[in-house]
């Protein structure tokens, strides 16, 4: 039974040896030493012929078991060393995840353009189409056909830039797009017209160029109450469900009745502050029922159709929404300003 003892000693001995190994070369060496052609176990098995036959079977079995044991052990050990090496390698090339990235940063939209888009989208979603017109506009479309005759004080409501092109002005509002639309399309008409407009206001609260969006809805049976509904829905979408809305009768030559629409001050919530000049209200848009004179100018039957129109200034809404204190900031194009509104 010497051989049996020898084998068991070998097992204990080498189990310990393998445990201490931590690189692949030594593992291969030790594997050869134990399991190679001249390895220890091979030697034991060679001596098996000297063992009495009745024990031979038992020892042979034991030797094979031990051989198998070590083969498994080596395989596992090899894997673990490889894993460790890979881990070390990966660790060595570890990236500092706090390093600044290497990609182009998305640009920032301009607040005015983005607000214009947001508002246009609301109406487009409601089913309005989008119309446009030139900025160097016929005086006729900008004024006369909108029921703003020459030598009428209503022309003073909008200080006009005149162009060295006879009969043309820089449009003072987006309303001439109403005229263009009604001259080319038959009711029903439901459009919005976003765009640049121009007024000769040279004070710090105005810009000579700014943006408006105009809405026009003409069909049979369109009423003032419908106007109120559309505007309410729109203002609630922009400013939130809880916004309070007030309609004040006013005057625009191209609508009658006309109203100014106020919302509860979004800054102070109606308490009164500098922005709302302590009134608790902010004037946000002008609207009204299309004046029959306008329908007559474009050849729409006033007994058959009614319509409403509205217009609002985009800069004011953007300034309110993003708490921008000075309109001039919108036009300086200082990227330190523009990039504040990335992702809006």
């Amino acid at each position, binding site marked *: 039974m010497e051989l049996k003892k020898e084998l068991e000693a070998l097992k204990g001995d080498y189990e310990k040896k393998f445990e201490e190994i931590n690189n692949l070369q030594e593992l291969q060496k030790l594997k050869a030493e134990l399991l190679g052609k001249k390895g220890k176990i091979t030697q034991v098995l060679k001596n098996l012929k000297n063992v009495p036959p009745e024990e031979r079977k038992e020892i042979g079995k034991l030797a094979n078991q031990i051989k198998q044991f070590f083969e498994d052990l080596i395989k596992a050990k090899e894997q673990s060393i490889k894993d460790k090496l890979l881990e070390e390698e990966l660790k060595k090339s570890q990236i500092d995840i706090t*390093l*600044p*990235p*290497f990609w*182009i940063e*998305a*640009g920032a*939209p*301009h607040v*005015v*353009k983005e607000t214009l*888009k947001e508002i246009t989208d609301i109406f*487009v979603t409601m*089913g*309005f189409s*989008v119309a*446009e*017109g*030139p*900025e*160097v506009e016929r005086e006729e479309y900008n004024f006369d056909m909108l029921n703003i005759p*020459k*030598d*009428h*004080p209503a022309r*003073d409501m909008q200080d006009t*830039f*005149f*162009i*060295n092109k006879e009969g*043309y002005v820089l449009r003072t509002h987006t309303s001439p797009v109403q005229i263009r639309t009604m001259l080319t*399309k038959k*009711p*029903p*008409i*439901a459009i919005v017209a976003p765009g*640049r407009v121009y007024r000769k206001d*040279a004070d710090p609260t105005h810009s*000579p*160029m700014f943006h408006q969006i105009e809405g026009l809805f003409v069909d049979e049976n369109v009423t*003032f*109450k*419908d106007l*109120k509904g*559309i505007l309410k829905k729109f203002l609630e979408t922009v400013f939130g469900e809880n916004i309070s809305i*007030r309609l004040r*009768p*006013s*005057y625009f030559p191209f609508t*009658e009745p*006309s109203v100014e629409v106020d919302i509860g001050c979004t800054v102070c919530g109606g308490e009164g502050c500098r922005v709302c000049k302590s009134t608790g209200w902010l004037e946000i848009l002008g609207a009204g*029922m299309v004046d*029959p004179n306008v329908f007559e100018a474009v050849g729409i039957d006033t007994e058959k159709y*009614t319509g409403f129109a509205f217009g609002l200034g985009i800069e004011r809404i953007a300034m309110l929404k993003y708490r921008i204190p000075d309109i001039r900031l*919108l036009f*300086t*194009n200082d*990227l*330190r300003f*523009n990039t504040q509104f990335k992702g809006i």
Partner: protein
Amino acid sequence: MKVPYSWIKEFVDIEEDPNIVAERLNETGLETTVEKFGEYIPNLITVRITSVKKHPEKDKLFVCEATDGQKTYQIITGADNVKENQVVILAKEGAVIKGQEIKPVKFGSFESEGMFLSLEELGLEDESEGILLLGEDAPIGVDASKLLNLGEDYIFEVEITPNRGDALSVKGLAREIAAIFNKKRKEINPNVSIGKEKNPQISVETEKVNRYRGIVIENVEVKDSPFEIKLKLIKSGQKPINNVVDITNYILLQEGQPLHAFDLDKIEGQIHVRNAKEGEVFVALDGNEYNLKETDIVIADDKKVLALGGIIGGENSKVDENTKHVLLEAAHFEPSAIRKTAKRLGINTESSYRFERGVDIESLPLAQDKAVELIEKIASGKPVGEKEIYQNVYTPKTIKLREKTTKRVLGENIPKEEACEILNRLEIPTQEVEDGTVSQIPAFRAYDLQREIDLVEEVGRLKGLNNLEETYPAVPTLSYEKPEWYMFEQKTRQFFLDNGLNEVLTYTFVGEEIYNKLGLTPPNLRIVNYILKSQSVMRDNLTVSLIDVLKENLRHQTKDVAVFEISSAFFDDLEEIRAGILVSGKIIDGYRYTKEKTTFSTDLQWDFLKVKGLLLSYLASLGFKDAELQSADLPFLNRYESADIFIDGKNVGFFGKVHPKKAEELKIPKNTYVGELKLKPVSRELQPLEKEDYLFTLYKRRKTPAFQPLPKFPPVKRDLAFEVPEDFEVGKLIHEIKNSCKFAKKVKLFDVYYLGNGKKSVAVSVEFNADDRNLSDEEVNSIVEELIKELEERLDVKLRT
């Protein structure tokens, strides 16, 4: 317009809180704010100045004595309008004026026992000249705060819309308030009798004066106005001048009827109300000389122009302290004529403001008689003659308001009984008829109420438009049009945003200077009445504005600038919507990183190929895969690094590097690239423009791609290197390979190498593919051989071996 509440109360019995009155006025269409008239200040007393002497020691100061009837005060003042006998307001010891407590103060060897006050010190105006003179008839020894109603009266500030000239007076506001609160307005009729002995000679020689009435008043005593009149004027924000002038202003404020008083002794011959003569010169009360045109209306005598009708009086006939007899004019001028003249000459007076917006032609005599009554009473004048020419007599228009029209427009059924009641409350005589109401439009609303819709508005606004319950209409499907351009624009915008460009917003007008600096001819289209010369030229490209954006940012040390804008360029007959880009400096301002054998840099500079990549990637995103470039020749670009962009042979834009000389002149970095793409033409006519050299036009016409079967057989790759002249365009080779061999499906450039002998080596990798079979090696060899032969024949290229 400022109107004291107390004055309104003379014409309508109303005791409502002034804030509620203002709120209701706002709700019915008159934009109104209300403020207290000053604040009660204790220790103010009225005193009469009994003597005024120059301060013997101090320049510009006066030593005054004043009495409150019992006590005499010594007051030192710097106001040079102090006058003996005038009643003024004295702030006694203990009064707090603008936060400062009044105490006796020594000025040299004289002690001042208080301070005479100006309107400014009372907190009633922003800046005063001199102290407030209350006149000689004001009571003395009384609480001055009480006398002025400080903190008691309220002032309405009303801003009317251009259609509401009728509300530009105490009377008009009283009428409106009476209607709102359902009260009766009171009219106080004057008691005057005008003699016939000295009727003036007046002829109206123009159609633009509808009514003219002149009254001769003799022996007026021009002096200070009585306190009561002064106080009302002060409360209304007006400066008292003298009794005659003050009375005309008083009536203008109260009745809304502008009046003018001429010094009768300065009139030579008769009065002619006529059109001005071309080139006639007139010196107005504002001291300015005006050149008149035939469209202007003048009041003239036989020799000279006395006044610019309805706008402003003349220096040569003005009423002053020496005036004895006056001619008091009340007239009605055609609004458009007044506006034309006032606008041209840049004059805006209380008078022109009202005439432009329409004055009540029918109550002209009433208003004028009220003035005459006052002149008799306080200037002791005698009306001794009158002449009236009423050539365009007002006939009230009859307007029917149908119940169904109100319903159609407002969406609310307002019964005719209610409409009738509302209109009558507004002093519009109205009767019910079968299907609605019929109104006679009074003269005070003549310009505003001309059609049925105008009455719908009246009824609506009084009923309260804000109270109407909203309805939610369905937008008709029939009107729907896909917003193709809008979507295209947004797609373009989103592309540039996603690719790292920031959106900017520039003015579409620029100065000439930038054009000169860029070597471009400034466009013709200009703003005639510009605010700034540097904002007067309508730009015909976006680059001129984008360079400004770069400069603005360089000022703030922002050097890496990548911006875009979608905006308009202007031409004589059309406008173009363009996408403009400007990039300068680095795409990524990165860092270098080295670790053992790994090294990289995250720095990325803009250069020609990157800008080309950006623009071509944009075009590809629209489905334009075959954009071609040709060298551009623009004066502000480096012609060796710039290109025009063509799609289907149409020039749709350009881009390139700013010419180094221009960059230097503009003080911008040399590494600056600009580009513009023409997106869409905008017609000034009604028909849209369908010009082909615009991306949107091409986009709408592009074919919808149809599915192509995927290749069934694997490609065979071959690398080929050619020797070509240095200036040979690589693109031509790539194009030609695809063109001359139907099996060459893909050509990829992988190496360009300048050989130094005027030649360069261009290496490409070509993928060969047949649709129906595997290409064998031998087959590919012969294809390549054929291809090379073809290329060498057609181009200046040689295969390198």
